[in-house]
């Protein structure tokens, strides 16, 4: 059986996600990596009150923030030869990650155990938990 050749790495800008990216590059050095970020309209951030306005302006801004986030993640890894693509989707992280498996034609997911939304001391974030249970491809959870 072949080892994984295309790996989806969900990235939310957290150090856990960056560790997962690094691990993916080490585990499958010649893989095609798809760095993925979900724009979550229902994410509540501590510095904002209430939900963001669901406007075109908000989405444009989020897409810019996402592009920066993924670019930074990509340039922070030490793998000059790696093939790293990026992809985004709007929706809940767990659902969009599971759906992105088919859309980006990957055969493996490597992700951090909890991201920036994780509660302090939480050992396995809700997104990782859902992805592990629902994904149709192998999922590696990294801490």
């Amino acid at each position, binding site marked *: *059986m*072949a080892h994984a050749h295309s790996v989806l790495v969900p990235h939310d800008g957290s150090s856990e996600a960056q560790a997962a990216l690094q691990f993916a590059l080490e585990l499958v050095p010649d893989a095609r990596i798809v760095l993925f970020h979900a724009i979550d309209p229902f994410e509540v951030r501590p510095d904002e009150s209430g939900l963001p306005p669901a406007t075109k302006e908000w989405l444009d801004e989020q897409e810019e923030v996402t592009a920066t986030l993924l670019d930074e993640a990509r340039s922070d890894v030490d793998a000059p030869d790696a093939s790293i693509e990026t992809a985004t989707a709007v929706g809940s992280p767990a659902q969009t990650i599971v759906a992105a498996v088919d859309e980006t034609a990957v055969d493996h997911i490597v992700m951090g155990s909890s991201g920036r939304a994780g509660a302090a001391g939480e050992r396995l974030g809700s997104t990782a938990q859902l992805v*592990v249970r*629902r994904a149709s491809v*192998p*999922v590696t*959870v990294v*801490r």
Partner: protein
Amino acid sequence: MTEGRPVAEPVQSIVVPTDGSDVARRALDHALSIAERYDATVSVLAVVDPNGAALTFGVAEVDELERAKERLVDDIVSTYDDRTVDVTGTVRRGRPAGEILAYANEIGTDLLVVGRSNRDGVTETLRRSTTDRIVTDTSIPVLVVPEPDAE
């Protein structure tokens, strides 16, 4: 080309728990393909859970279970005799998730590869599966291999 990469291989030791199920076999196949790539060792682990049934087993039953698990592990190891990968088998007694993680820590493994049956999803509200517990309770990277979808 390898400049800046860690000198050591990222994965040198892989632990694969097995209960004899097809999904555990799939996990083992995954582990072997990774092990081949890195020349890593694969440790197949079966756990005898003396409290695993509705009624607690007696000493004789536990011994019998343990022999069955040893046969299981021996069969698996001999299947892979001709592979280039070093595959070893171990049987331990205890609660599965806790025993698997204790073993993984003892041998200093770099990666756990576990199967996930689709049943886990159905019973997830009732009780946490062994796979769930492993993923939650360890700081070792865990590769979870799903059962193929019934089509």
